[in-house]
């Protein structure tokens, strides 16, 4: 521990703490611009300068480590003048126009810093050279006139997301933010996560949809979770007058620490789906609005008519645990529908759920394990489309020396960030893993790589992979101290691939007596929960008599549409008009995820709460209300709020944690 004094206060902090953080701990506020608690300090803006006894020049406190008996002053006249000067320099470097800027009036850290120094004007004029505006990106705009060169976006793109798209070119007054080697942002390797938008202190990076709609200081904030996938990132949903303004990552969330992806940040705000606002009945090919009484009586009639026929009930994996439980109780236990399952038919979870019958809590890896691992093996994980945040966690640990071995069934950008990427046909997934095991066995026997290469070279041709690469991959896994497997896709869906993977994991001691460093990506927000409630049957394509689809705000996939297109009669509970509602005989409007609340279990087994951010439109009911009424009408006694209880009783592939 180091002892020092700041503004006369004696403080003790661990060695390595910066003066800025030490001051924070002592309750002393030092203004900053380029600093951000989630990013490594940069020391570029010089706003945080302090006086250190014995040092001639003012020192930037964000990068200065404390030393024994250091004496620091943070608020002398010299410092005040220096801060005003720094701000004047920053304002005059480019072109900062407050009157019409989207963040002016509360959300601009540069403006707030000027207010903090009681600045009423600039002594120097702006640059008056026009800097470009890059509006090529679909979600946000980059206005270089407002950039203060703080590099927060560069650091965020690198350290939080591991994408490394943003960087700086040139030097001095010509320093300039660029994407890749100088291409428009919309044509770059940007993955649209929007972390740069979130950390930008000025209006240099502006989210299009929320601009001018509501400043962060003026809107309602609701800390809740995203239900875009099984990770369940913590988010801050910002609304104004019951309307969604923007979504930001919640820095305090223990799941994602503020990092979210395009799906969670931009899709909801850019959603232009048409809401279903009233129950609708199809009569003579046309949809007619009816009231809820009529709607429920139609439901009851249809259920009665089709009592012992071939009926199918489907629920979205975006529904809460209690809703899924109620759904199962009504349609499976009480009404005995033929197939009661989820929109994904358990494809991402059924196999692992069955495996856990004999091997509970078998997958012990979680998102934190990614940071601790020195060799991550992704198996058909497809981290550029879904579960992107897991992909970010992996990518950002690569510079630290972690190896990434990726075995995918299609080409993705993963091939550009690791030399150990393999693309393999879906049907050969399991075989490849078996092959790697045999290579590993051979290597431990003979150890001579060249001989081995000649020996197995011909066998490998059917996989279309370079033999040396495969040997390297095998060696990397064997020599790693803490390997981890993250799997999805065919490795979670196909039995032979799954079994091969378990063998593989056992062989390389990723599953051992002590531990199991495996993480199943699962699918949607509550896919695991649906599976543990046994809502994971496969739908056999046939002519069902009655289909009841509780699809809520999910967008039906082509696969789902093809499996259900021959149903004779359809009841669809949906938030939006979509391809499924267009075939329905009865459509019931239901709340979307922003308007509902409930419990969700993420891929790590952690239980989280989704809380309501918006009141639903008047005539739209919650899933719970609808299921309640149906249960009532068919005489099913529902023990409400039983979802988590029921789930905890099931044998689970991951430990369920409160």
């Amino acid at each position: 521990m180091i002892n020092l004094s700041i503004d006369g206060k004696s403080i003790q902090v661990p060695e390595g703490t910066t003066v800025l953080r030490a001051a924070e701990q002592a309750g002393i506020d030092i203004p900053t611009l380029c600093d951000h608690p989630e990013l490594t300090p940069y020391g570029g803006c010089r706003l945080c300068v302090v006086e250190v006894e014995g040092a001639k020049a003012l020192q930037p406190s964000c990068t200065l480590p404390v030393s024994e008996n250091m004496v620091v002053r943070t608020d002398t006249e010299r410092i005040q003048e220096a801060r005003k000067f720094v701000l004047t320099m920053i304002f005059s470097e480019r072109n900062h126009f407050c009157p019409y800027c989207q963040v002016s009036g509360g959300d601009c850290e540069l403006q707030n810093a000027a207010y903090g120094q009681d600045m009423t004007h600039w002594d120097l004029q702006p640059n008056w050279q026009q800097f470009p505006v890059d509006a090529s990106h679909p979600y946000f705009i980059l206005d270089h006139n407002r950039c203060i060169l703080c590099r927060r976006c560069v650091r965020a793109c690198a350290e939080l997301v591991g994408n490394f798209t943003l960087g700086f070119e040139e030097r001095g007054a010509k320093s300039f933010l660029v994407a890749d080697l100088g291409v428009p942002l919309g044509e770059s390797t940007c993955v649209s996560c929007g972390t740069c938008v979130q950390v930008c202190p000025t209006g240099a990076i502006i989210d299009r949809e929320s601009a001018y709609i509501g400043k962060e200081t003026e809107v309602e904030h609701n800390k809740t979770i995203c239900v875009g996938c099984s990770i369940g990132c913590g988010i801050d949903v910002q609304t104004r007058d019951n309307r969604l303004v923007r979504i930001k990552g919640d820095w305090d969330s223990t799941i994602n620490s503020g990092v979210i992806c395009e799906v969670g940040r931009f899709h909801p705000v850019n959603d232009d789906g048409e809401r279903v606002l009233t129950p609708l009945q199809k009569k003579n090919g046309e949809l007619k609005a009816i009231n809820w009484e009529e709607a429920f009586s139609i439901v009851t009639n249809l259920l009665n008519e089709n009592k012992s026929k071939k009926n199918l009930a489907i629920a979205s994996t975006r529904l809460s645990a209690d809703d899924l439980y109620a759904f199962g109780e009504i349609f499976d236990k009480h009404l005995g529908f033929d197939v009661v399952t989820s929109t994904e038919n358990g494809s991402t979870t059924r196999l692992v759920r069955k495996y856990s019958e004999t091997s509970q809590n078998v997958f012990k890896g979680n998102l934190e394990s990614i940071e601790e691992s020195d060799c991550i093996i992704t198996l058909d994980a497809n981290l550029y489309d879904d579960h992107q945040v897991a992909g970010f966690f992996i990518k950002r640990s690569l510079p630290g020396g972690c190896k990434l071995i990726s075995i995918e069934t299609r080409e993705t950008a993963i091939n550009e960030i690791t030399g150990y990427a393999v693309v393999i046909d879906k049907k050969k997934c399991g075989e490849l893993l078996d092959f790697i095991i045999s290579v590993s066995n051979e290597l431990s026997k003979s150890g001579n790589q060249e001989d081995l290469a000649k020996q197995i070279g011909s066998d490998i041709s059917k996989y279309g992979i370079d033999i040396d690469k495969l040997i390297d991959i095998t060696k990397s896994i064997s020599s790693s101290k803490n390997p981890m497997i993250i799997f999805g896709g065919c490795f979670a869906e196909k039995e032979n691939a799954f079994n091969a993977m378990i063998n593989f994991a056992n062989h390389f001691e990723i599953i051992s007596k002590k531990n199991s460093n495996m993480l199943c990506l699962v699918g949607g927000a509550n896919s695991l929960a649906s599976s543990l409630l046994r809502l994971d049957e496969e739908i056999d394509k046939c002519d069902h008599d009655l289909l009841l689809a509780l699809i809520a705000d999910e967008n039906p996939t082509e696969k789902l549409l093809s499996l259900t297109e021959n149903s004779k009669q359809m009841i669809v509970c949906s938030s939006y008009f979509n391809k499924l509602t267009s075939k329905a005989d009865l459509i019931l409007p239901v709340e979307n995820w922003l308007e509902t609340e409930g419990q969700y279990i993420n891929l790590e087994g952690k239980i989280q709460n989704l809380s309501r951010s918006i009141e639903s439109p008047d005539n739209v009911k919650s899933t719970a209300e609808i299921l309640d009424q149906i249960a009532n009408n068919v005489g099913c006694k529902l023990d409400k709020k039983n979802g988590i209880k029921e789930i905890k009783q099931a044998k689970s592939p991951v430990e369920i944690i409160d």
Partner: protein
Amino acid sequence: MGKPKVASDWMAGCAGCHMSFLDIDERIVQLVELVDIRATPITDLKEPDIDGVDVGILEGGINNTSNEEQAIRMRERCKILVALGDCAVFGGVPAMRNFFTIEESLRRAYIETESTDDEGMIPKDPELCVPTRVRALHEVVPVDIFIPGCPPEADVIFYALSELAQGRMPELKDKYLHWH
């Protein structure tokens, strides 16, 4: 002794700051008990008194030689000069014209605009003022008080004027300081 005299004028501005001033509503009755409002663009007198006023207020940036004259005249005739609003303090919205040359701006305004008939021409009469680079007030004359805002809120203007009326220099900070 008499009440302190106040005069105002506007240059390259939208008059919004004067409208915000009027938003002090009934407090103007309080104000005129403390000060003698002389020339303003919205009252009868148009130029500050030749023998001077105590407080001169200017809204808007300086974008031509006529504005320059206004600024210099006001500075000569007042003891305390106030720059009112972002245009006077910073250059403001009109200052965006500085990204283009004056020739480009004049051509766009008088010849290229879509609603101009083919006979568009740039005015050249020697009696007309000459456009210049758009400048903040303090780039032309020394300024004593800066009241930023677009426009500054009525409360801010009232606070500043009532402080001046009582012989004090207003301190703009916290809720009285905003640049938007």
